[in-house]
């Protein structure tokens, strides 16, 4: 089983991309809502909301990482494991990007558009598939993915403690 998983350093790099994207979305939404909350909530209460949101981000980022690792385990190594940083990064950005576009379309156009809201995320997924297919041939795509994931690791120094503190706080609030 251990052999079917990518190297730990590669997993960290890909997780950094995933965590950065989820947390980035959550923090942006948080800042967008902050002015409204300042009217009615005190700073302690706002911190509680932030903690819950960070825990949600953490769990969601773990779900995506686990999904990628399950793919590594189930499919032949050349599909994902051998080039985990490149393909994992492209897949993560594509999957999370499609979710961003999906929710973003609803925010932009409203639920009344119905199934038309699926068009943009579908296009993002096609683009992702195309990049994945070209990744082994185009050096440019590989180097962008590697350098992006490499640089994303720095955010883990902030995000991991944040996730840990938020998780502890949420657990304590719900256990006591």
């Amino acid at each position, binding site marked *: 089983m251990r052999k079917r998983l990518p190297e730990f350093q590669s997993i960290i790099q890909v997780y950094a991309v995933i965590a950065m994207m*989820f947390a980035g*979305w*959550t923090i942006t*939404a*948080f800042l*967008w*809502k902050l002015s409204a*909350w*300042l*009217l*009615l*909530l*005190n700073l302690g*209460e706002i911190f*509680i*909301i932030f903690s*819950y*949101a960070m825990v*949600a*981000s953490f769990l*969601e980022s773990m*779900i*995506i990482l686990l999904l990628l690792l399950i793919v590594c385990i189930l499919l032949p190594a050349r599909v994902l494991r051998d080039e985990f940083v490149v393909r994992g990064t492209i897949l993560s950005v594509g999957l*999370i990007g499609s*979710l*961003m576009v*999906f*929710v973003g379309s*609803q*925010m932009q156009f*409203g*639920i009344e558009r*119905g*199934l038309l*809201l*699926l068009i943009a995320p579908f296009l993002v997924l096609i683009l992702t598939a195309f990049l994945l297919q070209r990744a082994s041939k185009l050096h440019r795509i590989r180097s962008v993915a590697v350098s992006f994931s490499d640089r994303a690791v720095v955010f883990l120094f902030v995000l991991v403690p944040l996730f840990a503190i938020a998780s502890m706080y949420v657990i304590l*609030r*719900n*256990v*006591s």
Partner: protein
Amino acid sequence: MPTLNRREFLKASAALMAGATFAGASRFLSSPDFQGTKKPNILMFVFDAMSARHLSLYGYDRETTPNLKKFAERASVYHNHYSGGNFTTTGTASMLTGLNAWTHRALNYRGMVDRNLTDRNLFRLIGNEYTRLAFTQNLWADILLNQFESDIDIHLPCDSYSHFIHSSIQPDDLPSDRRMAYYAFQDFINLRVDDPNAFPGSLLMSSSDLARALVPNRNHISDDYPRGLPTNYDYSYENTSVLDGVGGLVKHSLVQSEPYLAYFHLWSPHDPYNARNDFVGMFEQDLPLQAKARHPFSGGNHSENALRQFRREYDEFIADLDAEFGRLISDLERSGVLQNSYVIVTSDHGEMFERGELGHATALMYAPVTHIPLLISAPGQVSRSDFHSATSNMDLLPTILEIAGKEIPKWVEGRLLPGFGGTEDPTRSIFPMMGKDNAAFQPIKHATFVLIKKAYELIFYTGYPGHDDQFELYHLAQDPQELQNLFSKDITTASHMKDELLEAIHAANRNFEKR
């Protein structure tokens, strides 16, 4: 399996009987009945967004409330009852704390009562000698109930008796932290698909909510509801199921925990006005209403025709609810549970279909959004009493305490209602207000204030960007449609009321800053 012989069986039966007799006797001996102080039960029904101006009970031209009218035949009916605010948070907080909005500070959308005042609530004051049950379908009212959680014995989840839940995680999923779970999930993490300004904090959960919303779900659709099931935008429900559930709770559970205070705050007839099939189209004929021009402070720009149509649908929804309420009351009466129960029917705020505005949480504080129904039926009451002087929904707290034989604290700003120890006071001043854009932690400088006194209503708009402060004065008895602004015509009244209102606001802000 162990077996009992005849002797053992008789011994066991005797022990059981003795135990049961003792338990029954001790319960009786310790009961208020035995001690000669039988406490009455109190049942409160709060129908969200039910404007008194739309009830035939109060003379509305459409026959929207035949059952409430019937109920009123053995109740005290308050004709000029006003909410402390024009949306759930403010109105409900005034009712449950007995305080003016500028004191309790639950001013904003989904706001809370001042954290230093949370012990000032009806459930705490009535005491644990009462079984205190609270249920609301309104999530904003539930925020307040969550603040009072330690004083409530049974707090039902908001989605009780509901059919279809729109979001994957609900505040009730985190029972130890319900108060903040509302803000974390409903207000942030979850996607509220109907919210035009949504920016959900979670990508995966909101995508799941959005995907669920895009898939047609049969539970959400019913032939009985051509406009869709009634919904609070988080749960869908049927009035029949909700009122049956409430009735069952009273008849089968609460009756074993007397005396009780049961607070039922139901979503209907709040929008969307999704009446059942039997009521759709029952008010096709238009009312002879005078068109009112769009108000400069109106947040909407609905046409007269659209407003007439919404009004019609709202009236149908009220008629639907009224029928269900009539059925519930008959059922409770038949079962005998009302023999020692006060039944209170009221609302948290009204609803408005005029001046371009639709709904209630608006800068416009005209009577349709502040004037709410109040009926109180006492045990054994056989005739109707009518009270016409102005009363406030802050008055419910002291009145309920009086009914329960409890002391009324000095800090309560409401008064005893006439008929329950209070007297009709035609000179009383009542101050509904709306300050949703004013920080709860700051003095109030951006708001609409109202002063109701005698038959007059003074409205004061202050702090609205791009607008000067503005006053309007109406004589509600002579001009119930609020068409003739008397502010520059009846100078004496306008001047007195203006001075009184400004002094009250300054005093409230001074007290707040001192606190």
